[in-house]
C-alpha cells in the first residue's frame, strides 16, 4: 500500500471548507448533493485528526448539521430537509460572495504604504465644555443591559468549567463525537461497549466518554435506560433551532 502524504489545507471555518469541497467536487452550490458533501466533509475531519490539526467546535457543529439534513432527507416527508438544505445553500452563497468581495477589497489595500503623523503636542485646553441633563447618565447606564451582562458572565463561568474539563484533549473529544455520529449514521443505534472496543489509551477512553456526554447534553443522542445502547435522536429542534435562533438574534 502506498501512503500518500500531503499537507492538509486549513480553512477559515466550516463554510470555507464546504465551499472548497463543493468546488473541488464540482457540486452545484444551488442544489447540493448532501450525501457526497457529508462524506467528503467527514473525510476531511478524519484527516485533520490524523494530522493532529485542531479544529474549532463549529466544524463539528457543521458535521452534525449535515448529518441531520441527510437523516431528515431519508424521512417520508423530506420537506424539512429541503428547507434546511436551502438554508445551508443560502449561507454558502452568501459566504462565497463575502469571500469574493473580501479578495477584491484586499487588492485595494494600501494602508502599509501611507504614513500619517501623530498630533503635535501643543498645550491646549481640552476640557469638556458641553452641558447635559443628568438623566443622560442613568439612560446610558441602563442601555448597557445589565441583564445581558449578568447572563454573559454566568454563561462564561459555565463554559469555563466545561472547557477546563474538555480542553486537554479537545481534538480527541471532537473526533470521538464524529466517530460516534458516524457509527450512528448507518444504523441509528450502537452499543456503548462498541465505542470503547480496542480503545486502551486512557485519554481516548475519557474522550469517548466526554463525547457521549456532549452529544447527550446537546440532545443529539439518547442513551437507553440500562446505559448499554446509544440512539441517534431525530431532533426536530436540535441543529435547526440553534441555527434559527442564531439568525433571529440579528436584527
Amino acid at each position, binding site marked *: 500500500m502506498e501512503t500518500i502524504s500531503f499537507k492538509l489545507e486549513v480553512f477559515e471555518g466550516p463554510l470555507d471548507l464546504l465551499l472548497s469541497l463543493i468546488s473541488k467536487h464540482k457540486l452545484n452550490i444551488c442544489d447540493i448533493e448532501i450525501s457526497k458533501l457529508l462524506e467528503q466533509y467527514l473525510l476531511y475531519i478524519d484527516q485533520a485528526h490524523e494530522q493532529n490539526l485542531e479544529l474549532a467546535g463549529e466544524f463539528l457543529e457543521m458535521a452534525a448539521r449535515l448529518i441531520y439534513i441527510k437523516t431528515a432527507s431519508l424521512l417520508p416527508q423530506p420537506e424539512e430537509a429541503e*428547507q434546511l438544505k436551502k438554508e445551508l445553500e443560502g449561507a454558502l452563497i452568501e459566504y462565497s460572495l463575502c469571500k469574493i468581495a473580501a479578495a*477584491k*477589497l*484586499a487588492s485595494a489595500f494600501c494602508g502599509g504604504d*501611507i504614513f*500619517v*503623523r501623530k498630533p503635535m503636542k501643543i498645550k491646549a485646553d481640552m476640557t469638556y465644555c458641553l452641558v447635559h441633563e443628568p438623566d443622560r447618565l442613568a439612560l446610558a447606564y441602563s442601555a448597557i443591559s445589565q441583564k445581558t451582562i449578568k447572563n454573559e458572565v454566568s454563561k462564561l463561568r459555565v463554559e469555563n468549567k466545561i472547557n477546563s474539563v474538555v480542553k486537554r484533549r479537545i481534538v480527541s473529544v471532537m473526533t470521538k463525537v464524529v466517530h460516534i455520529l458516524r457509527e450512528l449514521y448507518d444504523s441509528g443505534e450502537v452499543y456503548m461497549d462498541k465505542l470503547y472496543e480496542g480503545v486502551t489509551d486512557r485519554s481516548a477512553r475519557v474522550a469517548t466518554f466526554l463525547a457521549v456526554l456532549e452529544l447527550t447534553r446537546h440532545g443529539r443522542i439518547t442513551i437507553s435506560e440500562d446505559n448499554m445502547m446509544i440512539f441517534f435522536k431525530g431532533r426536530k429542534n436540535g441543529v435547526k433551532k440553534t441555527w434559527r435562533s442564531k439568525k433571529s438574534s440579528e436584527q
Partner: protein
Amino acid sequence: MEIKEKLGAIEAILFASGEPIEIYRLSEASGVDAGTLPAMIRLLNERYDDYGSGICIKKLDSSYQMCTRDAFAPQIRTALETKRSAPLSNAAMEALTIIAYNQPVSKGFVENVRGIDSSSVINNLVEKGLVEEAGRLDVPGKPIVYRTTAVFLRSFGLTSVADLPPLPDQPSLTEDVAEDDGDISEETDT
C-alpha cells in the same frame, strides 16, 4: 494675499492635527467657510502634485487628513527603520468586508455570515483602528455594533464607504445565478 494666508493656515492645522480633522473644525479654525474649503484643498493638492511633493491631503468622509504619498513608502520605511506591515489575514479581511458592506453590524452578524467565532478577529480590527464601536443594537442582549473608520478608508484608498466596489451578485463556484429566495435574503438583509 488673503488666500495665501488661509492656505497656509489650512496646511498648518492639518499638519499639526495629524489625525483626520472634520471639515467643520478645519473651517472654524482656519476661518475658511466650509463651502470654500474643498476648493482650497484642491488648490493645495494641485500645488503638491506640481512639485511632486511627498505629502498630500486626503478626504476621508467628512474629514481631511494630511498623509504621505504611497510612492515614497520605501524611503520612509528605511528612514523609520520599520518593516512593511503584514497584510491583513483572510479572516480579518472577511470580517472587515462584512462590517464595511453592512455597517453598523454586530459581532453576531459577522459570525453568522462566516460560520465561525469572530471575536478575536474583530478585536484585532478594533485594535488596528480599522473598525470602531458604533453604539448598541436595541435588541435583547444589546450587542455592540461596529462600523469602519477613517483609517479603513485611508487604508483602502476610499473617500467614503459609498465608494466601496459593488458587491458581486453571484457566487464564484458556479455559473448559476444565486436564487433570490427567502432564506438567503433573510440573512443578507441588514
